[in-house]
């Protein structure tokens, strides 16, 4: 799947979800977050299963959030239950998709509301626009900006690169910690 093709694609809204990149921990029985930085991406359902829209070649196990939370004795939500969608359950990075389609999670201004209500589809171009404009840290946005040759987004590139380095560092630290356990 090429990114250029996806720009022209029209995808049903139930087949597009916002996802976070997290570490799965078999011992813990769930995913762990890297608090200082949350990395996001967009997942699109294709004939071959769920793919990372911004970096289709990066294949990881895919999980999906359920709406149900677990809580402590104070009733405070402490975690959300997730279910496996594809891939093996193993230690390492994975995608955790939101329960709702992306159009329900982000502001509607990114999408053509008329088309959404009539046809229930979004276009690859709209998804790219969202990925470029959002304040969320999109893990593979830098390559998208470079591909599109957008010169005005230097600051975003710099910030993303900084976050990307921090994220990779946290990820490797997390793996190192596991080796010691």
């Amino acid at each position, binding site marked *: 799947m090429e990114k250029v093709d996806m720009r022209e694609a029209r995808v049903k809204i139930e087949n597009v979800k916002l996802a976070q990149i997290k570490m799965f921990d078999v011992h813990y029985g769930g995913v762990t977050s890297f608090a200082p930085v949350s990395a996001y991406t967009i997942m699109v359902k294709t004939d071959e299963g769920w793919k990372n829209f911004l970096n289709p070649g990066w294949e990881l196990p895919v999980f999906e959030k359920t709406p149900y939370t677990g809580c402590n004795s104070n009733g405070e939500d402490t975690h959300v239950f997730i279910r496996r969608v594809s891939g093996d359950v193993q230690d390492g990075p994975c995608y955790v998709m939101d329960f709702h389609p992306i159009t329900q*999670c*982000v502001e509607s201004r990114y999408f053509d*509301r008329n088309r959404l209500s009539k046809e229930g589809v979004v276009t690859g171009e709209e998804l790219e626009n969202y990925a470029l404009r959002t*304040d969320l840290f999109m893990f593979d946005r830098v390559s998208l900006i470079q591909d599109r040759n957008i010169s005005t987004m230097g600051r975003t590139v710099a910030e993303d690169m900084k976050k990307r380095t921090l994220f990779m560092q946290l990820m490797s630290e997390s793996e190192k910690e596991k080796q010691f356990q």
Partner: protein
Amino acid sequence: MEIIGLDEEKVKKISSIKKEDDWVLKYRTDSFRKFQKLGMPSFGPEIDLDFSKIIYYKNNEQDDKIQDDWNNVLKPIVDDLDSVGVRESEIHMGGMGVQYESEVIYHSMIREIEEKKVVFTSIERAMKEYPELVQKYFGKIVGNGENKFAALNGAVFSGGSFIYVPPNTKLDRPLQSYFRINSRNMGQFERTLIIVDDNSDLHYIEGCTAPTYSESSLHAAVVEIYVGKNSKCRYSTVQNWANNVYNLVTKRALVDDHGTMEWIDGNIGSKVTMKYPCCMLKGNYSKGTCITISVAGSGQIQDTGARMIHIGKHTKSTILSKSIARNGGNATYRGKALIQKSADHSEADVKCDTLIIDELSKSDTIPFNSCFNETSTLEHEATVSKISEDNLFYMMSRGISKERAMDLIVLGFIEKFREELPMEYAVELNQLIKRNL
């Protein structure tokens, strides 16, 4: 003066501006470390916030003193507040506090209430004047490590109210606080602590009723309430933030024996609201009620509900949630009724009704109901409905226009909520909802 972005030095700077005691500074820095460690909530809507761009503290040009006379408040601020009817509503109240950006600028109380030895002041002043009382409860009901936004509030809180109602005191008129954000990227982090001592009664109104014109602002408040033995507290709020404000609020009450806590909660504005007022029914025979309405319009996500945690015996709780979704809005009920093993002979009743106005909008009901003993009862009832064509036709056949008929149906749907609000608020709420339809 403005503080943009956040690190430990900036947290210390806020504390030094406010000339706080060491225990407060320690609490702030501890909260900041927890804020750094905690991740975003794993449930609910995605939060599209860049913490480095937020203004964490901003004061106005007025001097540090909190005024009790409107003549001493800067004219542009007075004009701004007049435009949304804040001063007008003061005549109905026993006392009033106004927070503009990060600081409380105005506080006043009528003489009858002062004579009853009621304390109604800003949290900062209370920390200096009543440190023992504040320290006993501050941060004890809502811990600073519970969620990322409670931790953030602990680190940078500024403004908010402190109320102490002494034992055997009943207030005839409500006390009110009004919060306003007026800048782009502004964060408002007020902290409210209310202590209703034994055999007392309080009605507190939080007004965020006016639309603001700011962009990508954050309102992350923490409200802690202690309801003493045989006491009652009612906390009414109608928030109508602009559609660019993230409203992420943690509200919790701890209720002692035979105490009653009532949350009356209206959510009309904001871009994303995540708010689940909670009652910890710790005392035997304590009661908790939450009546909440949410109206989600285009681009809005209202993720609201309530939490009732039964710990004491013979405790009772009621959650009544009404959600209205229109123009592609998303109104979600996310609530919790938890009857613990110790809470013998308790009762919990949860009712969620949703009205979906059009095909674009969406509503979810995500209840979490658990009962860990065999002597208690827990009931849950949920309905989802659309505006009935039959009802519309019936009213239109009697000469009522379609728009007016829809207004009537929606206002009828939230009748139970309106009944619980003071008259002047109920009228304002009607206007707000009509404007939002």
